[in-house]
Every structure is written in C-alpha cells, then in structure tokens.
C-alpha cells in the first residue's frame, strides 16, 4: 500500500491547477488584496473609534464575555454542520474509503481548522483589548491568550466531530446562548485590568491540539462526508453569487433528518391549516429558536459596549431580520416553487395573510425580548415594532435568487455587482423603513409610540395587499 504522503504528492503533481499561472494569480491577488483589506479595516476602526467609541460607556468585560460565548456557540453550530474537518468530495469518495491512514489524510484540513481558530481568537483578543483600553503589553498577552483559546476551541470542535456528539453539541449550543443571555442580564462585575497569564492557555492549546490530531484517526466517514457536501454547496453559492443556495440545501438536509411521529394539523381546515403548518415548521426546527435567542441577546451586549447610537440601531435591525428569518421558510418555499401554493387551493390573498400570522407572532416576540434586554423602558416599542420587522423579513423571504442581469456599478473600491447588493438589502430595506421610529429611539432620538404603531399596521397591510397580487 502506498503511503498517504506519496499519494498526496502524486495528486499534487498531477493536478493541473498547480500551474505557474495559478500561482501568479494567487500571489497577485494577495499583493493587491491584503493591503486593500488592511487599509479598509484600519480606516473603519479609526472611524468607529472617533465617532462612536468616544461616546461609548465604560469598557464592559461582561459584555465581551457574553459575545465570546455567542461566538463559540456560532462556531460550534458551524462545526456540527460543516465539519469542521472537511475535504474535497473526490477525496472523501475515493481516498477516505481506502486503507490510507485517515489521520495523515485529514491532517492538512485539521491544520487549517486550528489555524482558523488561532486567527479568530487572535482577532477577538485584539478587538477585546482595544475595547478594554488595555496598555500595550497586557493587550498583546490578552490577544495571545485569546488566540490560544481559539486553538483550544477549534481542537475541541474537532474532538466533537470525531465522536457521535451531535445531539450533545446542540445542547451545548443552547447552554452557551442561555449563559450569554444570563451574563448580559446580570452583568457580573469582572475585572478589566487583569494581567492575563497567556502561558496556561498556550499549554491547553498544545494539549487539545495534540488530542484533536490523535482523534482524527477515529473520525467517521459520514462525519466529514456530510459536512464536505454542505461546505462544497456553500462554496458553490459563493462562486455563483447565490448566497441563498446554502440555506436551501441546509433546509433540505434538516428536513431529511426529521422523523415526525405524528401529524399536527388536528382539525384545522383552510387558512387555519396553513397557519398550523407554519407552527409545525417552527416546532420541528428547534435550532431556529436558538438563532432567535442568540440574535436577541446581541443588541443588548452591543448596547453595553457601545451605548445607544446608530451602530446599536443597525445591529438591532440586522439581528432582527436574521433572528426571525426561519419563520419565513414556508414563504420562501411557496415563492421559489409556485406549484406548492397552488396545491393548497386558497386565494392568493388568503394564503398570503395566513402565511403572515406566525412571522408576525415570532417577530413581535423577538422585538419585545431584544428591546427588553437592551432596556425595559423599550418594552412597548417592542410590542409595536414586531409586525414591521416581520414585514421586512417576509419581503426578504420572497426575494428569490440573485438577479445577475442587473448592471455592475463602478466605485472607488472597485466594480460592485448590483444584483447581489439588491438581494442582500431586499427585506432589510423595508424593515428599516417601517422600523424607522424605533431605530431613531435606539439611536438616542425621540418619537411618539404612535409613529411605530402606524408604521407597523400600515406597512403590514400594504405589504399583504401588494403580495396578494397575482
């Protein structure tokens, strides 16, 4: 049997993408891209510092901890679905089923995961040190400790993948989101000027990294084959500028894993059956509620770091549209596959209104919860803002695929395809318009509650009327 290294070397030599032209293109992209990105990020940080952080509240270590918990929950969720160790579909099919040493075969992929963990942790540490206004030496130690923590977490994610811990992992994600919410609400007093001992973190990273590499040999084929397929789909979505592709495939996969024991329609008929279907979808997708809770916590932590302001308003709006997006899954499905709603035999207006019931309920729940976490005096605003948020989300759910026929525009940053921009802001635009009164209040302004009530009622009614048109 050939050694894994020999096969990999042979494959590298044979594959035609390793040409000088490819190398040249990659180097050129790096030479142009890296300085552009660094310059843009530096400029954004300086503007953020000058305009917003000058008015921010005192550094909030508890908020950083809450964000860190959410960040890890997000990583864990991604790891459980995408790997984190993945490979090309061809390698999964032909090499991973051969007697080649699986640990050696997957080692490069694991190396990328651990490297990404170090990078993400380092970035988080750098931003955190910046937020806590640490002096230079402790800031470097803090960033190094966070980078080591990132490696540790990445290694643990690989360990999770190498065991059959999918259900356990989902439970941990819920716990992390709950812990983040508790930290956000209770705001425990944490020291912000500690001298972070980075060495124990580095030792933990080394031990966990070694453990992860050792566990690679126990990785089941199915555990990385499924993630590889989904990662390839996401990559295809990026290449073809179709970001919705991954969501559609993920929904298909999630549906395939479901085993409902009984029907939940009861005696509901007509439009009530449609509402019942949306409720069933909500019940059968617990991860949507985790996203709902996590996104509801983010604005509160942002408020603790930045105080009220435009940034908080933008964060709240984006979290809102993302947080309740799951409630629009059936609207998206109806819109993408027109044959499905025709099977229901309902008038378009009735069906559109019925499909709006659950999103409005979920949207209201989200706005109430998220605004109450920011400050309980916004509670009534939350009640009134829910239908407006749901309306924006429903518009986003009906956006379909990216329209590539739109012309690109020339900007100082380069050529921007407007189709993808149109796709990305569709829904957020309407939500921003209808939620303008709440956004003004979150930015520090003042408006009467009636303005939001009018925005919600009129916006929802007009949207439903327009959406019902054939």
């Amino acid at each position, binding site marked *: 049997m050939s050694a894994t290294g020999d096969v990999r070397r042979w494959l590298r030599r044979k594959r035609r993408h390793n040409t000088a032209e490819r190398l040249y293109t990659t180097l050129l992209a790096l030479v142009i891209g890296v300085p552009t990105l660094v310059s843009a990020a530096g400029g954004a940080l300086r503007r953020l510092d000058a305009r917003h952080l000058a008015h921010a509240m005192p550094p909030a270590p508890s908020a950083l901890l809450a964000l860190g918990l959410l960040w890890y929950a997000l990583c864990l969720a991604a790891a459980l679905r995408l790997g984190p160790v993945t490979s090309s579909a*061809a390698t999964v099919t032909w090499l991973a089923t*051969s007697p080649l040493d699986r640990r050696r075969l997957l080692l490069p992929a694991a190396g990328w995961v651990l490297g990404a963990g170090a990078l993400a942790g380092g970035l988080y540490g750098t931003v955190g040190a910046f937020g806590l206004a640490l002096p230079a030496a402790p800031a470097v130690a803090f960033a190094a400790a966070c980078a080591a923590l990132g490696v540790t977490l990445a290694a643990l994610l690989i360990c999770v993948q190498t065991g059959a811990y999918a259900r356990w992992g989902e439970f941990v994600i819920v716990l992390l989101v709950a812990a983040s919410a508790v930290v956000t609400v209770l705001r425990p007093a944490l020291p912000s000027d500690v001298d972070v001992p980075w060495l124990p973190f580095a030792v933990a990273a080394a031990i966990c990294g070694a453990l992860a590499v050792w566990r690679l040999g126990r990785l089941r084929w199915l555990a990385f084959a499924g993630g590889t397929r989904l990662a390839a789909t996401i990559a295809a979505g990026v290449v073809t500028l179709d970001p919705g592709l991954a969501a559609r495939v993920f929904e298909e996969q999630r549906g395939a894993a479901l085993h409902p024991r009984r029907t939940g329609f009861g005696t509901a008929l007509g439009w009530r059956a449609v509402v019942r279907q949306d409720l069933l979808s909500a019940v059968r997708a617990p991860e949507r509620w985790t996203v709902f809770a996590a996104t509801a916590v983010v604005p509160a932590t942002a408020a603790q770091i930045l105080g009220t302001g435009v940034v908080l308003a933008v964060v709240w709006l984006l979290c809102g549209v993302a947080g309740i997006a799951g409630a629009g899954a059936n609207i998206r499905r109806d819109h993408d596959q027109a044959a499905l709603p025709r099977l229901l035999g309902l008038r378009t207006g009735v069906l559109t209104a019925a499909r709006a019931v659950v999103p409005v309920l979920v949207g209201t729940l989200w706005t109430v919860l998220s605004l109450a976490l920011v400050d309980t005096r916004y509670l009534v605003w939350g009640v009134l803002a829910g239908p407006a948020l749901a309306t924006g989300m429903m518009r986003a759910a009906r956006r379909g695929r990216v329209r590539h026929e739109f012309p690109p525009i020339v900007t100082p940053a380069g050529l921007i395809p407007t189709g993808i921009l149109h796709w990305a802001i569709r829904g957020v635009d309407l939500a921003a318009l209808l939620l303008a009164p709440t956004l003004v209040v979150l930015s520090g302004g003042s408006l009467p509650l009636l303005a939001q009530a009018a925005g919600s009622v009129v916006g929802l009614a007009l949207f439903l009327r327009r959406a019902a048109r054939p």
Partner: protein
Amino acid sequence: MVLKVEGVAVGYGGVPLLKGLDLTVPAGAVAVFRGPNGSGKSTLLRSLAGLVAPMAGTISADGVRADDRDPRYRRTVALLLDGGAWYPDLTAAEHVELVERANGPLPDGWRAAGTFGVEEFAGETPGRLSSGQLQRLALAMVFARPSALLVLDEPERHLDAEGRATLRATLLSYVDAGRAAVVATHDADLAGTQEHLLG
C-alpha cells in the same frame, strides 16, 4: 471471504427500516438486494460498508467488525454509493491510477474481466464525460482496487445495455477469484447467487 450479518437492525433517526436481519455471504457469492424505493437497501449497504453502525446486531467480514474507521475493514471493502465525485483536473485514467496508488496494486489474477471501456475516454477530464461514462469510470475505479468484498448501490445507474452486460460479467469474474459482492439494484437482469427482497 465471508460476510456475516447477525440480528441486524438498520434505519435512521431511531426508526428501524429493517430488523432482525441474518445473512451470510460466502466467497464466490453475489448477494442481490431488491426492493421498492425507501425499503432500506442503501441504508443497509452503508451499514455493510461500515459507514453507519447498525442499530442492533453485528456485521463482520472475515472476522473484522464493520467500521470504516478500521483500516483493516477499509482494506477489505470496496464500495460504490450513490453518485461519484471527481477531481476536475485529473483525467479518467489518472482517477483509476489514483485508486491503485491509494489502495495498492491488484494482486496477480485479480483483475476483473472488464475495465468498462475507460480506455475510450482515458485522457478526458470528468467535466467532459457523460453521466454514463462517469458511472463506467466509477465502476472501473472500484474494480481496480484490491478488495475482498464489493458493496455496490445501484451500479447499473446511467449504464446502457452494453454497460450493464459488462457489469454482470465483471461481477461474476470478481467473485470467481474467491471474493464476494453485495449489490442493491433495480436491474431485473442482474442475477445473484443470493436474492433478497426488502420491503
């Protein structure tokens, strides 16, 4: 080579599709599984290949428990599941060579009768091949590696009449060398030495 299946239950999400399955596939046998869509053929084949642990019972080949994490089991089993995956920049011949390199060359006298006509498109990359040619390439790759047990899920997919005939002949030639095969199929002409009806 003997594949032993004892009291096996397979399914997913805690719901068994097949229960209490006992089966012995000796050397020289081709076990053919037939059944309607959703009867559990592919799920059973995944368990036989060691990719999924059965919900109950044991599966072993030559005394080695079915587990894809065990290199001994991977050395024993060659499998072709639904759909192939390809390196877009390798030719058809290089795909076959890759499998030979990864698994080691076939021992003398183990070469099955057919190569599924891969030589006709040996220099082409997968993107230029039809679905039937890709299926022939996948079969050629599976037969090009040393194995004692072949697990094939609907291998007749996309094949024309000539390709199906080659498949039947190659399978018989494969098991004649003291090996065994397990096939899930909808091809009525693919006769095995054992027939199992599921569902």
